[in-house]
């Protein structure tokens, strides 16, 4: 049957719309995984090249399109990190990192350090859960791991971060005041 010019123009138009719809999902997830805007740009290119080439293999009966595109994005990021055999760069140490004044107000540097200390496989579940707000079941589908593994990785990630984040003196004071000693309460 073949492709007419009209078919090709239509396909390109639709793919442009698809790119516009999902570019932020891919780019921002990759940025949080890889820690640099340059790497996130590369990831955006590679992920959409792959989407373009293999779109006809997407099977909606096996999951949502967002799950599929997340899986391609996450696999790209994990493979990239594996190939480079490096850990994630702390964002604030990246050469091209110039946060806006508004974001400086929001910055939580102690937390970022704790996040940067996580391994890639722990970091990815944290990003998918606490940035993308995905349910555990979908995270399991994206990473191709059982639900129990998602739970244990999140547990481990937050436990590691909890260890490196000692409660602030203010938090300690609030908790000490709010939670009375058992004996005192009697």
């Amino acid at each position, binding site marked *: *049957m073949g*492709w007419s010019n009209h*078919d090709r123009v*239509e*396909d390109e138009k*639709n*793919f442009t*719309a*698809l*790119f*516009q*719809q999902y*570019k*932020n*999902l891919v*780019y*921002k997830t990759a*940025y*949080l995984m890889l820690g640099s*805007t340059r790497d*996130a*740009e590369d990831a*955006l*290119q590679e992920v*959409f*090249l792959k989407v*373009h080439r293999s*779109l*006809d293999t997407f099977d*909606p009966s096996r999951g949502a399109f967002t799950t599929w595109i997340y899986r391609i994005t996450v696999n790209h990021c994990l493979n990239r990190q594996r190939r480079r055999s490096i850990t994630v760069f702390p964002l604030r140490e990246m050469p091209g990192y110039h*946060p806006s004044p508004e*974001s400086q107000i*929001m*910055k*939580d540097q102690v*937390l*970022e350090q704790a*996040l940067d200390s996580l391994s890639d496989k722990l970091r990815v579940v*944290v990003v998918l859960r*606490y*940035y*993308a*707000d995905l*349910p*555990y079941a979908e995270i399991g589908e994206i990473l191709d791991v059982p639900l129990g593994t998602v*739970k244990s990785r*999140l*547990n481990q990630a*937050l436990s590691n*971060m*909890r260890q490196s*984040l000692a409660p602030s003196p203010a*938090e300690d004071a609030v*908790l000490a005041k*709010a*939670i*009375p*000693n*058992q004996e005192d*309460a009697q």
Partner: protein
Amino acid sequence: MKCHDIRQTFISYLDNEATPLEQLQIREHLAECADCRAEMAILARLQSRLRSSLKAEAAQVEPSPQAWARLQARLSACPIDLPDCRKGLMARLGLLRSDHQTEYKEGASSSNTDQDWSFIAEPLNPRQRLVWTTRWPARGKAHRRSKRELIVKNKPEDDLLDVTSEKGN
């Protein structure tokens, strides 16, 4: 259940991903254990900080305006034979809905993190009774009257996890 064991389920509880049984066990345990209430409060705050921090980081960055042009150039440089089944595929699969969510919904998460956790940090008024009601047969520690007068009732008409407080005598 021991503190170490119950704490393994705190994260999924805060994320609304714990099973009903786990939820019940956690609530029973929290009613008795001040250390675990403090731990739960710290974890809830950590999750909240994580969300804020990740969303703030992501909000600072955008794909470059040249991203599509670069991709288009690469696609043109290496054309591939598209199968016939690809024709109209994106529209057929409904991938191009105009109302599709392209950006993450800020603050739309379905977690317990943003809930009011003051109840686990609030000292119980000795005159106040915390009454847990359940359809399940009362057993173990929760069945006994603790120093804080924790009582498990067995009323079939009560909700599974209905936690209420009432004035003591």
